[in-house]
C-alpha cells in the first residue's frame, strides 16, 4: 500500500485535476448509491410510504395538500425524487457493474483462447466478433433482450428482468475486451518466458492462466472503466425505451422516461435531475477512463 502512494501512478494522479475531480464524483455517486437507505428520506420502492397527494410537488416547495416539502420535488406518484434517484442509481450501477463484469470475463477468456490457440478457433471467435461489431451494441442488447424475454416463461419474466438486462448488455460489450486481450496474447505468447514454461512441460491451460493472463490484464482495466460508462448509458437507453427494468423499481433511465412524459406540461424537474445525475456519472467515468488510458499507456498519447 505504501508502495502505491509512492508510485508514479499516484504522483500523476495528484497532478491531474480532471482525474481527481472525476474520481471524487464517481466515489461520491457510488457511496450515495450504496448508502441510499441511510441518506434517502423515504423508501420509494415501498408503496405504503407513498402518498399520491404529494404528486408533482416542485423542488423545495411545500405541497399544498400535505404540507410536506421535497429537496428535488416529487414525481407523478408522489415519490420523493431525491430518494428515487438514489435508489435508481443503485440499480443503474448494479446493472452496469454486473454487465461489465460479464463482458470482461467473457471477452478476456475468448480473447485469450483465440490469441493463444490461433487457427480455426481464433478465426471463428474473431469473425463472430467482427460481425457483432457491425451492429450498434444497443441494437445487439435489444435483440438479446427480446430473445431472452421470448424464451423465459411469463411467470419469471418479471423477476428475471434485471438479470436479462445484465446479460444482454454484457453480451453486447465483450468484443473490445476480446480484441485487446487477443492482441496482447499474440505478443506475449512469442516471448521466451512462455518457451521456458513449455520446456518444463506445462500444458496449455497452465501457460495461459499462470503466465499469459497476468501479462495481458493491464489494458483490460482501462477498457472496463470505459465500458462501465457505456453499460450505464445502455441500461438507461433500454429502460428509456421501456424494455429495461420495471417502473416499480425505476433506474435512472426509467426515471428519465417518466420525466419526459411531463416535460411539456411544466414538471421539468422530473426529467432534469435524473438526467443530470446520469450525465455526471457517465461523464466522470469517461474522463477518468481516458486519463487512466493515457497514464497507463504513454504510447497512446
Amino acid at each position, binding site marked *: 500500500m505504501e508502495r502505491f502512494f509512492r508510485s508514479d501512478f499516484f504522483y500523476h494522479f495528484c497532478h491531474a485535476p480532471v482525474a481527481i475531480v472525476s474520481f471524487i464524483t464517481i466515489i461520491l455517486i457510488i457511496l450515495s448509491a450504496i448508502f441510499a437507505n441511510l441518506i434517502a428520506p423515504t423508501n420509494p420502492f415501498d408503496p405504503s410510504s407513498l402518498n399520491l397527494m404529494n404528486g408533482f410537488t416542485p423542488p423545495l416547495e411545500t405541497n399544498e395538500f400535505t404540507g410536506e416539502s421535497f429537496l428535488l420535488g416529487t414525481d407523478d406518484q408522489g415519490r420523493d425524487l431525491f430518494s428515487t434517484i438514489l435508489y435508481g442509481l443503485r440499480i443503474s450501477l448494479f446493472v452496469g457493474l454486473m454487465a461489465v463484469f460479464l463482458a470482461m470475463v467473457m471477452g478476456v477468456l475468448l480473447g485469450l483462447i483465440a490469441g493463444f490457440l490461433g487457427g480455426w478457433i481464433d478465426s471463428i471467435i474473431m469473425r463472430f466478433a467482427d460481425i457483432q461489431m457491425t451492429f450498434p451494441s444497443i441494437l445487439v442488447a435489444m435483440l438479446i433482450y427480446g430473445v431472452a424475454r421470448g424464451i423465459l416463461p411469463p411467470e419469471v419474466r418479471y423477476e428475471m428482468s434485471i438479470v436479462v438486462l445484465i446479460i444482454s448488455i454484457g453480451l453486447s460489450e465483450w468484443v473490445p475486451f476480446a480484441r485487446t486481450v487477443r492482441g496482447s496474447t499474440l505478443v506475449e505468447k512469442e*516471448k*521466451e*518466458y512462455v*518457451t*521456458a*514454461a*513449455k*520446456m*518444463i*512441460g*506445462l500444458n496449455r491451460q497452465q501457460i495461459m492462466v499462470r*503466465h499469459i493472463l*497476468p*501479462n495481458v490484464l493491464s489494458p483490460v482495466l482501462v477498457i472496463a472503466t470505459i465500458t462501465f460508462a457505456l453499460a450505464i448509458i445502455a441500461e438507461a437507453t433500454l429502460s428509456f425505451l421501456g424494455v429495461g427494468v420495471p417502473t416499480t423499481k425505476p433506474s435512472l433511465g426509467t426515471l428519465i422516461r417518466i420525466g419526459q412524459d411531463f416535460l411539456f406540461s411544466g414538471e421539468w424537474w422530473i426529467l432534469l435531475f435524473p438526467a443530470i445525475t446520469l450525465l455526471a456519472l457517465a461523464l466522470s467515468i469517461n474522463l477518468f477512463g481516458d486519463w487512466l488510458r493515457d497514464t497507463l499507456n504513454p504510447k497512446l498519447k
Partner: protein
Amino acid sequence: MSFINVDQLTRLFDLSEPWIVRAITGQKKRILTAVDCVNFQIEKGETYALVGESGSGKSTIAKMVAGILVPTSGSVIIDSKDFNDAKLDKTSMNALRRKTQMVFQSPYASLNPRWKIGSIINEPIKAFGLIENENSQHIRVIELLEQVGLSERDIGKYPHEFSGGQRQRISIARALASEPEIIICDEPTSSLDVSVQAQVLNLLKDLQKNFSLTYLFISHDLAVISTMANNIGVLKEGVLVEEATPKDLFCKPQHDYTKMLLAAVPNLQNN
C-alpha cells in the same frame, strides 16, 4: 553412440498464403528449408557451438534439440531417447524434459515480468516434483541464486529490478533448477555489454565444470565461440558447411563461408 546425436535433422516452414488466397491469386506454395539434413554429435560434458549469420537456422535447431519444435524429418537422440518418439511414456518424457533446459537471448522477454524471482526459479522444481516440502524448496532456491552469484535478498524482487546481466543469471538459475544435464544457450550474451558478457560466460564455464553440464552454445560471435567451444559447427542457410575444433577452424578454415566470417570479425589485435 554419443550423448546427443543429431541425425539428418531437417525442418521446413510453410510460408505460403492461406489456400483461399492462393486459389484466387494463383500463387504457388512457398516452402522454406530452415534446417537441411544437419548431423552432429555432442559428448557428455562438452560444448558444441553453432555459428552462422542471422536466419541460418541456429535457433530452429536449438528448439528441435530442446524438444519444443517437431522436426520435419530426422531425429535428435539424447541419451538414447527421442522427444518425438510416440512410444515414449509420460515419466520418461518428463525425465527427458528435466534433463534439457534452455537459456535465451533476451534478458527482458525470458522472465515473466509479473512473477517474483523466487517463484520463477521455483517453478521447475514444482513442475517436476523434485522437492515437495515448501521449506526445502525455499532453501534450494536460495542455493541456486547463490550458485549464479545472486543472494537470498533477491527472492522477493521482480525482474524489472535487475540489470540485463543479472537477469541472464536468473535465467541460468531457472535452467539449473531442474538439475539438467544439457543446457541449450541461444545467444545468451548477445544483448549484454562486454564486461557483463565476460561475467556470464565465466559463470557458464564454472557451472559446466561443477555439474559436468553439456552445452549446445549458439552465437554469431566467433570470438565468443572461440572461448567456449570444444567443437564448432558453421551453419549457412540451414546447411552445416563445416565442423571442426576451434584450433582447426580458426587456424585452417576450409570452407569459403567460414573464411569470410572469420575475416569479418572485428578484432582488437588487428589495429
